């Protein structure tokens, strides 16, 4: 280790995962660990994360076009975002809590610290959640988020994206990520997206699914999520 030029902080699966420090994304410089992470031994890895009951989820939590209506429909392109949560062997993970948040159609977050002067939408919050079903599936209705500027460098813009937080079955299954839309011209300029190795970036881009669209209602995108490791919970 002393002789190696690059101290490997965590032997993450660098095939697909970003490094901790990615200096083009400036905030990583003071906020990423510099010392090697300590591996947790095999027998301690299987710690289960908590499960949630169906009753924890509100009736409209999966429908961001409805869950914050005040006096009308939210503005923007109505979409459906659906997919499956799986382990690395493609086995569906059911009862996984999927939480999402996003900007509105104008690229504005409702967050109080947000400074972008695009308009807020009185009928859109941008937060949703649901549990995956027996086949590991989830499906949200929402509004396609807009791009927004940020302060990383001069004229920095984030591509359209939806943030995802996933609580799987084991402690190693905890994932926070972002889903992007196909063909976004901002991909090549966004250091957060670019932090992922080139050949794995496609894993963060939803697929447009013409066959899942709802005629005269909503276009559809598919975004599947594969969690680290295999699921140890028994399958019936």
């Amino acid at each position: 280790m002393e002789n190696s030029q690059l101290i490997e902080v965590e032997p993450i699966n660098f095939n697909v995962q970003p490094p901790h420090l990615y200096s083009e994304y400036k905030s990583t410089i003071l906020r990423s660990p510099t010392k090697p992470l300590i591996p947790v031994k095999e027998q301690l890895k299987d710690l289960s994360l908590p499960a949630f009951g169906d009753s924890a989820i509100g009736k409209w939590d999966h429908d961001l076009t409805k869950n914050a209506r005040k006096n009308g429909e939210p503005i923007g392109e109505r979409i459906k975002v659906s997919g499956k949560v799986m382990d690395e062997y493609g086995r569906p993970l059911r009862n996984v809590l999927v939480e999402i948040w996003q900007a509105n159609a104008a690229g504005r977050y409702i967050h109080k610290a947000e400074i972008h002067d695009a308009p807020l939408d009185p009928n859109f919050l941008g937060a949703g959640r649901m549990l995956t079903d027996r086949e590991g599936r989830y499906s949200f209705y929402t509004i396609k988020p807009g791009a927004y500027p940020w302060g990383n460098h001069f004229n920095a813009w984030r591509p359209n994206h939806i943030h995802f937080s996933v609580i799987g079955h084991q402690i190693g299954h905890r994932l926070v990520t972002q889903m992007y839309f196909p063909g976004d011209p901002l991909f090549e300029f966004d250091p957060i997206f670019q932090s992922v190795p080139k050949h794995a970036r496609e894993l963060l881009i939803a697929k447009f699914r013409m066959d899942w669209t709802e005629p005269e209602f909503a276009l559809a995108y598919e975004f599947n999520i594969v969690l680290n490791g295999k699921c140890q919970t028994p399958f019936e």
Partner: protein
Amino acid sequence: MEKLRQTPSQTVGPFFAYSLTAEQYGYDYNSLINGLLINHDTEGERIYITGRIYDGKGQTIPDALIELWQADANGQYRSLPIHQKNDGFTGLGRLGTGTDVQDRFLFTTIKPGSIGDGQAPHINIILFMRGSLHRLYTRLYFSDESATNSQDELFNTIPEERRNTLIAQRKQNAGRIEYHFDIYMQGEKETVFLMYITNDVIS
């Protein structure tokens, strides 16, 4: 069986609060998880867990998300599903660091029991923030458990000079028991972060 590629991780960003910690930040959306891991019927010693998160320049971080996952006073993790917020002992907590003037988090819980031989009482911590591309795992151990800490399997795999970064300091404050646990992202006191990797990693 051909393996699928994992979904890459991305930062939680600065704007998670209205979804993940909405009630704490005053947004009109309910929360499933907050800073209270117990209810009044929960057995065990009432404690508060507080601290701050520091960046590489020693500045406190006001936009981090911290999650706690712990066993009850008998060393049992909750196995029943959580049906609502503060559904008895959940053992699960979640707070942002953006609602306190000093960027502190403050969890209300009970001191966990040991989950078995070779395991000192501890709390699992998962940390997210703008500027972090991955979830970061660490563990909180208790300063008044030095004998059991020294028997702990994981604690003992950590280089000795870094072990104190995982110890929360017990303090009495206005008649209540607080454990102080500051997290340092970098620097001399850099907190030990853990990895739960199953297999097939390039090392």
